[in-house]
């Protein structure tokens, strides 16, 4: 791996982050083929959206893109998020559609969105969410709680 003073190239970005992004995509989608697609769409979007917003923050940028790609895929595939996971199983919520939920999730700030998807969709433990997002477990809990609050408000 070359030093931080060298110009960042697509290849260097891949070398640094492709494994963890693939692993993340695998966790988000739970399927090899879907993970492959999310990995490819993530890096193609990164190449098209070049340059990264800030040098040294490429990792967070890639996670954000990967999370968005995985959510977009889930929406396209109309994959159902388990509504009881959201604590939204009250009778008046019966009409809540996946599209409503996806829309609510979509407007979350990326950090909260990733934490929410990892915990509530993929069912990862908080410690694992924290490791995946490179934050403390407390921060992961707080992000998920904040995301839940916003989703509930949006679905009301």
């Amino acid at each position, binding site marked *: 791996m070359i030093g931080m003073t060298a110009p960042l*190239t*697509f290849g260097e970005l891949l070398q640094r982050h492709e494994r963890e992004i693939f692993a993340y995509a695998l966790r988000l989608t739970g399927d090899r083929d879907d993970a*492959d697609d999310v990995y490819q769409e993530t890096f193609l979007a990164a190449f098209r959206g070049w340059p990264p917003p800030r040098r040294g923050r490429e990792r967070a940028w890639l996670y954000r893109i990967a999370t968005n790609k995985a959510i977009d895929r889930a929406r396209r595939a109309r994959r159902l998020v388990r509504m009881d996971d959201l604590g939204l199983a009250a009778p008046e919520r019966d009409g809540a559609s996946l599209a409503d939920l996806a829309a609510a999730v979509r407007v979350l700030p990326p950090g909260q969105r990733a934490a929410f998807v990892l915990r509530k969709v993929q069912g990862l433990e908080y410690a694992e969410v924290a490791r995946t997002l490179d934050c403390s477990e407390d921060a992961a809990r707080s992000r998920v709680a904040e995301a839940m609050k916003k989703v509930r408000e949006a679905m009301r």
Partner: protein
Amino acid sequence: MNDLVTEARERLVSRARRAGLATVGYRVVDSPLGPLWIAVGPKGVLAIHYGAEAPEVDLRRIVRAYGPGVLPDPRRADAVARELDQYFAGRRRAFDVAVDLSPLTDFQRRILGATARVAFGAVSTYAGVAARAGSAKAFRAAGQALTANPLPIVVPCHRILASDGTLGGYAGGLDAKRRLLALERGDVPTGGWPKKAPTRS
């Protein structure tokens, strides 16, 4: 998971190439002189570097000329890798692959062009190359341009010696220079020299 990532990467690079996002492909090949990092752009070979990692100076030049779309793409470097294998096996005396010197300065291009005209098995001097390049007085600058040669072996700067007949310098080390000169004198073991495995971090 390594295999999955490798397969995904190959597909990604193909897609990036089709989308015009991958301007330069690179790979690391093994050689008798150790690993070589090779980059190939739209007009030809851009860099051959002694070592398994991209050198910063080459990357800067490549990115300045072709942007950040520098991706691992072994197939793009197939032709030059094959010719290097043949050269090291004593079965090739000149390289047919196109080289791209366009990101270099005019002086560097002239010096490297003059160097490329020194035939297999022959040698010249820094002063000789400077004179051939039309800058007879600039032999020190010629030496510097050759030290910074981004395409060693293919542009045969190992054939250029100091005026007193000593080896002068070489980016790959003087042992590598001696070996290349020996190879061109016909000193190749049957079956070619063994490849040195790359040292990977």
